[in-house]
């Protein structure tokens, strides 16, 4: 691992404190929180979120945003569910998930990098398109009865470890290596930090930016597979709002929306924080709608702290 990742001090000093308070609070408030079984639950429940929060970090590092990722995830989940039902082939299912996701990502990237549409508008448009397509191909119904090979993605285990955990670990390792160990990774930082520097270095930055969005789309496909497996169904609206959890995880993890200033391990911690918050609130029987409110507040809080930090030198 390079200096880039490790030598950075904790970027969101409030985050660990917040995490600690939550852990202690939930342990006191509920009996079931501080148990090994529940810890596994938190990990499993956070797995889908993590798969999209990682590429979302890349996107935000480029001073971009992907509002479409939740809707794209839904679209992928129904497309792959239908493929699985029709063919029964896991390879075909995975291929469709990746293809649909990547196509949506390329659309986003094309709009942002080549037509220079502001990212939040471009991805808002794609959000609408993906949502419609998901509803249209299913007629608004869930696609149920997935083959075992698909169910294995969430429900199985290898060598005694649950597959989602392995999948997330592999995803993190891959994305970490991509960001910190490749040329592409350094371009991601430069896309947000100083595009002029890329031009002067002769790097085709538009292509790189397109690749970042395409990557986010591809991961939405994988996340769609994991979600479908978990729900045992492809559901046309299952992923709605998930982009917000992902953005929240990135923001909580200390990645700034400006100048390519970010930290991938922070996103890991941020996503786990959200997982723990949701899990704890679940145990406290707080409705899922109010859980989202709490995440919203948390994000606004994170930005407020950031605003105070940057405005008082």
């Amino acid at each position, binding site marked *: 691992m390079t200096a880039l990742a490790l030598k950075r001090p904790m970027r969101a000093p409030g985050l660990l404190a917040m995490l600690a308070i939550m852990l202690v609070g939930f342990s006191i408030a509920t009996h079931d929180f501080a148990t090994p079984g529940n810890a596994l639950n938190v990990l499993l429940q956070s797995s889908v979120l993590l798969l999209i929060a990682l590429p979302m970090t890349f996107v935000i590092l480029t001073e971009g*945003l992907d*509002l479409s990722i939740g809707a794209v995830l839904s679209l992928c989940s129904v497309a792959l569910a239908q493929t699985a039902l029709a063919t029964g082939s896991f390879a075909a299912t995975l291929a469709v998930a990746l293809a649909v996701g990547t196509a949506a990502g390329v659309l986003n990237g094309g*709009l942002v990098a080549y*037509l*220079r*549409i*502001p990212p*939040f*508008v*471009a991805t*808002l*448009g*794609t*959000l*609408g*398109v993906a*949502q*419609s*397509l998901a*509803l*249209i191909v299913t*007629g*608004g119904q869930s696609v149920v009865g997935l083959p075992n090979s698909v169910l294995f993605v969430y429900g199985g285990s290898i060598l005694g470890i649950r597959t989602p955990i392995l999948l997330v670990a592999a995803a993190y390792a891959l994305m970490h290596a991509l960001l910190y160990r490749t040329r592409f990774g350094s371009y991601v930082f430069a896309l947000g930090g100083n595009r002029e520097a890329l031009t002067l270095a002769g790097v085709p930055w538009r292509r790189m930016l397109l690749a970042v969005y395409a990557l986010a789309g591809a991961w939405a496909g994988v996340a769609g597979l994991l979600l479908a497996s978990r729900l045992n169904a492809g559901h046309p609206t299952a992923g709605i*709002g998930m982009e*917000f959890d992902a*953005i929240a995880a990135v923001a909580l993890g200390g990645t700034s*929306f400006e100048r390519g200033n970010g930290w991938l391990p922070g996103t890991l911690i941020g996503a786990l924080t959200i997982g723990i918050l949701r899990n704890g609130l679940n145990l406290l029987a707080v*409705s899922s*709608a*109010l*859980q*989202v*409110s*709490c*995440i*919203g*507040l948390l*994000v*606004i809080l994170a*930005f*407020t702290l950031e*605003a105070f930090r940057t*405005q008082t030198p």
Partner: protein
Amino acid sequence: MTAASSEARAARPTLPPELIRLLLRLAAVLIVGVALSLLSGAFLTVVNLVNVLRQAALLFFMSSGLTLVVITAGLDLSVGATIGLAACIAGTAIKSTGDPWIGVAAALAVGAAVGLLNGMMVSLLRIPSFIATYGMLWVLQGVTYTFMAGATVYGFPHGFRELGNGYFFGMPIPVLVMAALLVVGTLFAQRSIWGQQITMIGANPTAARLSGVPVRRRLILVYTLSGLAAGFASLVFLARLNSAEADIGGSLTLPAIAAVLIGGTSLFGGVGTLTGTFVGTLLLTLVLNGMNLLHVEGNWQPLVTGVIIVAAVWLDLRGSRARS
């Protein structure tokens, strides 16, 4: 060039570009209208046209406040959720007190308070507007769902429902209110010094600030007005639907933004009118109404709206690049 000749040139009647753009959009409305009347016999009927106007009015209430926000180069993604919360609180208040005016006050207060918070986050904390209002969206949605706990309130007093269903001299009341709002809003945006300052903030916030415009106060005002407009829209929805449940506003944000953008208000700030937004709401409502009449599934709506949003911004970008 001397001042005399500059006056002489000014006297030559040329249409200002903004008017030309507005006329182009009106032409688009006409074309869509003609196309629809050819495609569907049900389109060119009084009942349907009145219906279109009424739907356009509902959309316009939201889009009017949003127009001001977009003129300042901001975005308010929380309008739909604001409508949801305001409608639910107002509906509950009316049901429990029986007094519609309490509901009206509640909806407007909720809208203004949400807008105020948005404005403070954007202007004082300098959180990018789409992030601040996006966070607000989810906060509001959670509060609304919790407040309603899955319940629906319905059955409001007749007098209140007139706001949505009533007629006055043969015109639906929402349409008349829309006309009034269009006049008052245009007066504010185009004729008041605050409206002018808001436009100039959108065109160049630094220049506005260095010319003595109190930028922060004006931005807070703009977001508050957007919240207030959403609060008012919630009342009309409430009266029209005669019921409120938590997900009432969820699908409204995207069309509201689309109407503003196809109305010629630039996402990059400094350009935009309420008349444009009015035409934009008409155009969007016609398209959606036409889809309805042609039996296109409702599921196509987000796609069409999304494409329209991106296309509008792209055209705007192309236009401004061509000009410079």
